């Protein structure tokens, strides 16, 4: 505690410093208002900073040297004057600080965001778009799913944004500006003006981030808006958000963090953190509002895949979010990100579960004409093929078994699963099998609406066969469903084929039986001509009816169609041939044989080819061929 040496010299230093400060007092002079020190001239800026330092030095000296009352009294006045000067200096520095920030706070440069070399749509590998044989029964839901598959591929295309697979900080402003800001910040903080510093910094940088957000296409949508939008519109917004979020977390926020660290380097503990949070907290919450709103939206099946995309993207970003927001004060942001992630997972689970219920309850009763593949079957099988594409994510997310049907209930109104297939299967696989079980159950119900039992069997055959084909067509799906269950399904459609044949052909072939045609009596022995004629007439009528009707039925799968026709022929043709062979002479020896023997074996063989084509035939067509 000694008086400063060379007080005059120091006073002179102080006085000239004070002069500089007062000269730049913008409340006092017009000239001071007209230009900014740090824009004018390096030399001016340095002078000013030295002046500030000088004033600060004298303040701390003054507080050291108060050791007498007289000195204290003087010192109070002096101190007040010095404080006043400091305030003027700090006010000025604050404005300079703001000005430098504003000069360099435009939105993130375009070439930090966008990769100029990539084209807007590169044709990366697309999954094969599946095409079904039967085009005639295409329905809009099938088209929807094709579109779903296509868009799933799109999200893996390279985007126009720069590669954002990891954190990459960019320079948000030139190094000179950072140095100036650092110099100013140091002085403001050491004079106790930290709060002003943080306020200014936060407000300017926040508006810069806002501009960047706009450039990235991040919208301010309310939850209400998102509920009202069509899902298609939302899908493209989700894609855009995913790309933008990667840039935000890995480039934008990371760079802001770095900027804070540079400007507030060694200026005090956690100040850079406080400034960073001041800047970034609002925008970060705004960014997360979107996926949160999506996760809350009403659940419906077509949303599953985009929600999984969103989930995966956020999951991927999570480590970087934790790296960029790693301080105590940013805990709420990390927590929110984790919350949203778990909500998205829940939404995915909920959608899957609702999908299963929806299949069970799907109520359409109008039978599909011709017994062909039901749109429900198509939709469900395409859907679970897509699910198997997302196997990696879903296996992690789906943790519980399907909620119904695992217990044998004996209740005819709900389906159930048998235990044999269930050993060692992942919950996801169980769900997929359950979906197929439920689908079949529903189809069984639908088949009962056909008045013709044969058609009901055909319907089941067609649809279960389709299920089998789809499972076989996707290796992931097949692996999850398992060959045991696949065998069961195969047996099912084969059995349906057999049931069909029995239902239709037993009575037709019954006409061609031997019993009842032979009589023994007093005047004749051998064959009853009248009975024989009846038989032929009945056979012809039945066959024509079956032919006419079942030509309009449809088996979309070529191979299956062929197989069934061959199977029919194998029973029909030999029976007819042998019947003709044994009994034609009896008819031909009577009147008008052509009324009874209408068809040759070849005629029948040809007619069988009309079956299951899905087209009606004219009756004439058949008669013409036989002549």
């Amino acid at each position, binding site marked *: 505690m000694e008086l400063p040496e060379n007080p005059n010299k120091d006073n002179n230093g102080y006085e000239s410093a004070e002069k500089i400060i007062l000269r730049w007092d913008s409340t006092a002079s017009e000239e001071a208002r007209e230009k900014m020190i740090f824009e004018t001239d390096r030399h001016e800026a340095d002078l000013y900073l030295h002046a500030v330092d000088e004033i600060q030095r004298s303040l701390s000296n003054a507080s050291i040297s108060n050791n007498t009352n007289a000195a204290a009294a003087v010192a109070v006045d002096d101190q007040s004057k010095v404080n006043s000067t400091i*305030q003027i200096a700090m006010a000025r520095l604050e404005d300079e600080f703001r000005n430098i920030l504003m000069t360099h706070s435009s939105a993130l440069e375009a070439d930090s965001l966008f990769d100029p070399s990539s084209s807007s749509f590169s044709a990366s590998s697309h999954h094969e778009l599946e095409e079904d044989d039967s085009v005639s029964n295409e329905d809009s839901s099938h088209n929807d799913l094709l579109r779903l598959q296509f868009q799933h591929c799109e999200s893996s295309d390279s985007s126009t944004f720069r590669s954002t697979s990891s954190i990459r900080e960019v320079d948000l402003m030139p190094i000179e500006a950072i140095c100036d800001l650092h110099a100013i910040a140091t002085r403001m903080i050491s004079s106790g003006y930290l709060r002003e510093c943080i306020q200014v910094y936060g407000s300017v940088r926040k508006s810069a981030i806002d501009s960047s957000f706009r450039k990235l296409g991040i919208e301010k949508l309310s939850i209400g808006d998102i509920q009202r939008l069509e899902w298609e519109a939302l899908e493209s917004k989700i894609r855009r958000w995913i790309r933008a979020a990667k840039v935000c977390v890995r480039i934008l926020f990371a760079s802001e963090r770095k900027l804070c660290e540079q400007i507030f380097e060694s200026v005090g503990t956690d100040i850079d953190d406080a400034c960073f949070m001041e800047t970034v907290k609002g925008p970060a919450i705004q960014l997360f509002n979107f996926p949160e709103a999506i996760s809350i939206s009403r659940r419906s099946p077509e949303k599953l895949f985009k929600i999984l995309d969103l989930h995966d993207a956020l999951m991927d970003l999570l480590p970087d979010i934790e790296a960029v927001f790693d301080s105590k004060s940013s805990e709420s942001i990390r927590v929110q990100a984790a919350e949203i992630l778990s909500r998205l997972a829940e939404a995915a689970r909920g959608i899957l579960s609702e999908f299963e219920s929806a299949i069970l309850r799907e109520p359409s009763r109008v039978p599909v004409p011709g017994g062909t593949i039901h749109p429900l079957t198509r939709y469900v099988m395409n859907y679970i093929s897509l699910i198997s594409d997302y196997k990696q994510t879903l296996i992690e997310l789906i943790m519980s078994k399907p909620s119904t049907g695992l217990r044998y209930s004996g209740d005819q109104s709900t389906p159930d699963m048998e235990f044999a297939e269930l050993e060692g299967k992942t919950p996801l696989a169980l769900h997929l099998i359950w979906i197929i079980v439920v689908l079949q159950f529903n189809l069984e119900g639908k088949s009962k609406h056909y008045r013709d039992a044969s058609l009901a069997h055909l319907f089941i055959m067609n649809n279960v066969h389709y299920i089998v084909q789809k499972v076989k067509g996707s290796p992931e799906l097949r692996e999850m469903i398992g060959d045991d269950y696949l065998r069961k399904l195969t047996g099912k459609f084969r059995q349906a084929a057999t049931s069909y044949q029995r239902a239709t052909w037993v009575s037709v072939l019954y006409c061609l039986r031997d019993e009842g045609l032979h009589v023994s009596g007093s005047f004749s022995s051998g064959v009853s001509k009248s009975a024989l004629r009846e038989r032929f007439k009945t056979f012809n009528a039945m066959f024509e009816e079956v032919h006419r009707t079942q030509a309009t039925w449809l088996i979309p799968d070529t191979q299956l169609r062929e197989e069934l026709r061959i199977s029919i022929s194998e029973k029909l043709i030999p029976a007819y041939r042998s019947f003709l062979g044994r009994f034609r002479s009896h008819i031909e020896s009577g009147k008008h044989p052509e009324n009874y023997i209408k068809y040759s074996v070849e005629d029948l063989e040809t007619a069988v080819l009309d079956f299951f084509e899905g087209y009606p035939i004219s009756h004439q067509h058949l008669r013409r061929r036989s002549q």
Partner: protein
Amino acid sequence: MNANEYQGSFLGRISIRRNQVVVMDAIHEQELEDIELFQKHVSDRFSELSSPSDDDAILSISWLRKLLDVFLCCEAEFEAILLMDRDPYQLSKPPFDRLIPELLDRAVKALDICNAVTNGVESVRHCQKLAEIAISALDQKPIGDGEVKRAKRALITLMAAINLDDKDGTNAKSTERSWSFGRRSGNKDRVAGQFRSLSWQVAKNWSAAKQIQSTIYNLVAPRGAEASGLPSPIYTMNVIMIFVMWALVAAIPCQERTGLPTHFPVPKQLNWAHSLIGLQEKIADEWKKKEKKGMAGLLDEMQRMEKSAQSLIDFTDSFQFPGDAEKLQEAAGHVAELTEICRIMEQGLTPLQMHIREVFHRIVRSRTEFLDVLEKGSLPVI
């Protein structure tokens, strides 16, 4: 279960139906009791809110948190009544096929308001930070010109923030701390274009007032038979939700509150509603008084802050070193008041935000439950 659908023998029908009726009556009886209890609880809770202690002035931070707690309690009871052991098909039939979707629609609006208000708390925090600058300046002993100027600068910005027109979250003129510069010709354009320190996180055309207005629209009290059944607690819950959101919007600055409705169409004869209506009218009166002045919200702490800040601005305007002893003492009193308010804010704002967030989560969950039940009770379209 509809007794009329039973088909069986004459005698069989009678006995079955009688059993059904007995069972139905018992269920109905229990339900009525639950509803009555629920509404009594509502009445009690709002009555408590109407007579706050000193620490909990109406629309203070701690009072708002109590309000949020009341909401959570009422909501839990409501959900239990509506959903526990409930046959999903019942809620898909009239009048619930209209009432439930309306409730859920209001829930979505409430979610947006929760987000807007949580965001709005940030602007309260912004005011707190500005006030803290003034406090740290005026806490110095002795107070000199420097401190006073510093405080004044902060206080003027604070008043500008408090009197900020909600629409002008995007207005450059009043958002930033006052410059020493006033008009600076060279940079004016740059300032106006870039500068939004308090921009709202909602879309430009989103309006808190309109949002509240649309929740009140088509809010109709159940009449006749409906008034003694489930529609009644549904109506009660709607009113509670709307009131809570409305109070939050009145208290905390958020985008576009001009035209905030001040009247709730709730029939006065509903006995559970008395305290709620009383509170609503009291707050509405305050709102109408202050509306013309333009203000940052009726939050009690903000009102107090505004008063103290204004007094301190007057003080700084008339200050000359070394200052009048009496005035200094008065100023010290205001500074102490401001300090206390900032302390309350420092401790209370984040918990308030978290509390609102909890309400947000609850509304989401409740909505999901209801949507599930609606799905189960109706046939979907694939």
